[in-house]
């Protein structure tokens, strides 16, 4: 609550970039998962 606007923006940028990384990882895992699933079928 005591954070200033600049600190909040910095925190927001950090969380946003983290989200982006998680989305990329998720896409990779999805891709590999379905490839494996397809081969096991």
């Amino acid at each position, binding site marked *: 609550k005591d954070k*200033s*606007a600049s600190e909040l923006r910095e925190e927001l940028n950090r*969380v946003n970039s983290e989200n982006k990384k998680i989305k990329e990882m998720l896409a990779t*895992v999805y891709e590999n*998962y379905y490839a494996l699933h397809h081969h*096991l079928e």
Partner: protein
Amino acid sequence: MDQYSSSLVDTSLDLTIGITRMRVEEDSTTSALVEELKRVNAENKKLSEMLTLMCENYNVLRKQLMEYVNKSERDQTSPPKKRKSPARDDAVSSAVIGGLSESSSTDQDDQYICKKQREETVVKEKVSRVYYKTEASDTTLVVKDGYQWRKYGQKVTRDNPSPRAYFKCACAPSCSVKKKVQRSVEDQSVLVATYEGEHNHPMPSQMDSNSGLNRYISLGGGHAASAKGSSSLANKHVTTVDLTESKKVTSPSRIEFPEVQKLLVEQMASSLTKDPNFTAALAAAVTGRLYQ
């Protein structure tokens, strides 16, 4: 008085420089940022949960694939059954290799798969096939090739009704050579021995100087027929050996080795020439021939 008081609206001069208004604006921006941060954090949490779940599922699936690969590898090492197509192998390998780079176990799996492929390549290069001609009455699946073998299995399947026996080299514990013996489909008197690997020790019969050596030479050296190759076995070594001849070799009258023959002839000659009766009989026989 009332109308005066109502007309007294705001007599202040408002001499501030707008700090209050700026603070209000800053507060609204901060609250918007806080809201946005809350939203992004919630999204982050949700994505993390999804990622965790997805990783768990992926790992379970990959474990199943590893078990499947191990099982097929075991099947290949014992009796070579129906193989997966190479394209499928490559696809599965690439699917596994293309896994998460963040996972440390993926590297180990990659190494394992690469190692496995290398081993398979080595084994493929050292496969040789030898055809042994046997007696028609002989129904055993034993091939005497000079090495000692330990039988570890025999199999008959519906798609391949001809029985086949599996042997492992018993000459040295570290030797991993395996042999599969099966009757030929075209000619039941022919045994087809498929060797996998290369012996890391000398042939036991080469170390013996007596019967073992003779037996081996009679098989490998004396009666090895012409090696013939087929188009499907271009990279494999194919040899044909006639085992029916080996039984004839066991009779003393058919020994065909120069050293042994020479030794026997010398012994016979020395013993016969010492015998006066033999000399007389020989002289009579020669004389009789001459007269005839």
